[in-house]
């Protein structure tokens, strides 16, 4: 049987959803795979929702919004652009192909462009093959990784960064100090790496109490780094010492919201 990818589209009401309607009105044909969820603005697309959709086996996620400058809500689409950029970096760490997530701008008058983009994305996902997370037996490694990614995307730090990125670069902070895109990207990459690893540590010790040494081997990470992350996780009230085995402390996860 040929592979029929399952693609979820998150479309804004005013431009891209209208563009999708126009494709239909114009009887422009495109593959049937996409299932569209209408939102008022592409700005509504929460990184957690995208990851959750991928975790649940979507072969592709297509986010569509208004062209920059056309957003019905002034610039909700530009926030989405930054979120998608962050998400792609995060997904790339998990072993899942970041190409499974894609962002495009489609106006209400671009029925043809909508159909073409859906056709292209469907073909791209067909070429990638089924998501390793789809079906009865999802790839356990990637699943564990992407759950950690989701946990990182739920975290305050990444959300603050991506939510403030536009402001920090364009307007500056409360002192009027602007950040360059380059500087910001460096900070963001560092935060992404740290939060992702911390989530992985958290998930690992939630399964069973472990020592720094075990964690360092499991995550292929310098023990010093693991220790630093453990310190942060303890400070956040997410991890505690379970017991001390000889002289080696074993850490365990505390039940918290994230």
């Amino acid at each position, binding site marked *: 049987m040929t592979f029929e990818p399952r693609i979820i589209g*998150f479309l804004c009401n005013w431009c891209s959803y209208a563009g999708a309607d126009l494709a239909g009105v114009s009887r422009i044909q495109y593959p049937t795979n996409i299932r569209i969820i209408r939102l*008022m603005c592409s700005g*509504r697309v929460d990184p957690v*929702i995208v990851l959750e*959709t991928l975790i649940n086996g979507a072969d592709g996620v297509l986010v569509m919004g208004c062209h920059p400058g056309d957003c019905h*809500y002034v610039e909700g689409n530009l926030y989405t652009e930054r979120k998608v950029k962050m998400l792609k970096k995060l997904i790339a760490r998990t072993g899942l192909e970041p190409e499974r997530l894609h962002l495009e701008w489609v106006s209400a008058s671009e029925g043809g462009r909508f159909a073409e983009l859906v056709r292209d994305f469907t073909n791209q996902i067909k070429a990638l093959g089924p998501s390793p997370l789809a079906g009865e037996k999802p790839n356990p490694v990637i699943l564990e990784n992407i759950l950690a990614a989701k946990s990182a995307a739920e975290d305050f730090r990444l959300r603050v960064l991506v939510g403030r990125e536009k402001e920090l670069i364009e307007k500056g902070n409360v002192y009027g100090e602007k950040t360059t895109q380059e500087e910001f990207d460096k900070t963001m990459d560092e935060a992404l790496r740290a939060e992702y690893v911390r989530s992985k540590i958290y998930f690992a010790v939630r399964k069973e109490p472990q020592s720094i040494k075990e964690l360092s081997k499991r995550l292929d990470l310098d023990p010093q780094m693991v220790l630093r992350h453990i310190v942060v996780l303890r400070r956040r009230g997410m991890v505690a010492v379970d017991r001390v085995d000889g002289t080696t402390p074993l850490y365990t996860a505390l039940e918290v919201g994230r």
Partner: protein
Amino acid sequence: MEGLGETPRIGVFVCHCGINIGGVVKVPDVVEYAKTLPGVVYAENNLYTCSSEGISKIQEGIAKYNLNRVIVASCTPRTHEPLFRAACEEAGVNRYLFEMANIRDQCSWAHMHEPEKATEKAKDLVRMAVAKAHLLKPLEEPEIDVAPSALIIGGGISGMTAALCLANQGFKVYVVEKEPELGGMLRRIYKLYPSMEDASEGLSRIVNSVRSNKSINVLTSTVVKQVTGFIGNFEVVVERANGETMNFGVGTIIVATGAANFEPIGMYGYGEYDNVITQLQLEQLLKDGQLKKPEKVVMVQCVGAREEKGRAYCSRICCMNALKNAILIKELYPEAEVYVLFRDLQTYGKEYEEYYSDTRRKFIQFINYVSERPPEVTSEPGGKLIVRTYDVLLGSEIEIDTDLVVLSTPLVPHEDAKELSQILKVPLGPDGFFFEAHVKLRPIDFATDGIYVCGTAHSPKDTAESVSQAFGVASRAAIPMAVKRLRVEAITAMVNENVCTGCGTCVRLCPYGAIQKDERGVAKVTSVVCKGCGTCASSCPERAITMRHFTDEQIMAQALAALGRVFA
């Protein structure tokens, strides 16, 4: 409140839309499938669900099966949701307990040659709608009072026309004009086409009417500094020339700031040769009786307009304006030769086309050029100008020596349009003009309720068109002010105060300033200002914001249903 806490009793109405859906999707199969979904207590198909018969079927269904959720699987919610919502409301089901599955525009029409797959997709779309319907909550649209007063920004012909219209309906009007005088661009215009009456005559009439109207407060040499609030209750701060500020409240706001004329510095010798001028400068010379008798005049159309990059738009008025001034020159100096170099002559409409024929009868010469080979202007000793251009009809280069070159330049947005757009939190389009809510269906509204746009602030247009739009905008603004009370959209954000840490991310990114921190430092949404985009919810670091009607849970339910999950 109906529907709250009740077990969902969902009714699904699947539309054939004649053969539009039924000709591709197996509608009866979709109906049978819908019946199998948890919570669905009734499903049927209709030939046209939007017909009066279809609407009664929904309402009968609600009564007979005690439905508390309604799904219509048919066309797009963008056109038909209001109709079905109203039908539900009439039958006692809250309008927000209605959901649509778009199985026509995004299914049967787009997959006409794949009936099997289209039917499967239609089932999926219904399953997604059912999943969301389970989680729908009844919402109440808040009611607000509307102050019977309007702020009109710009005292040109558009602003003044709108002001008079509203004042004559009994509303209080503030006209804020940044220049010391009312009149705007029209003050610089000599004659109006096609009637050829003096612009100043009509203008002074309307300025006098505005000045003498007791309901209109004219504030010249004044700019808008700050606008807060929302439809019905805007708070405005303006600044006079002497630095004094003044505050007042209004119910509605009209943007009628007009446009500027493009200065074609460096194009066709403009700025270099004194006898290369713009149409607006020619207008002034004609008005003042200062135009010296020329032997020849060459007008160049589309200067700085309809560009491949940059100003891509057609300025709409320049063709007619050039014809008008060409006629005026001919009437003044019948022996003068007038040439109009054009790319495409756009004299749309019946009167304007007749006007064009008239110019031909007056022996005005029209020469077609192409943008790839635009005319060139050089000067020769003695002050004469040489215009060289490729004539499309002749298929060769021609040369005209002339006393005067007149450039038809487009109307461009005012430099301060961007600032005003930020003060009002309304968008500008790609060309920098104010951007309407919908090009066809809401051409003079902004997406923000209670703020409207007319005249050349929106796009280039002539006086007659600006006046029509001003009448239109006055009527639009009068609606909420006449009704006095208003229901506003219930799709708004809501902050969970127990989770909010007061970080202020949402306050900063809300495009409407709808979120402020209260005295406890917790984010608080002003519902009537919120437009429901949901950017705050997706960005909240603590995930403390719920977007009503588009909650995380509702969106996820749809996504999971799309992936095959059936919700109980």
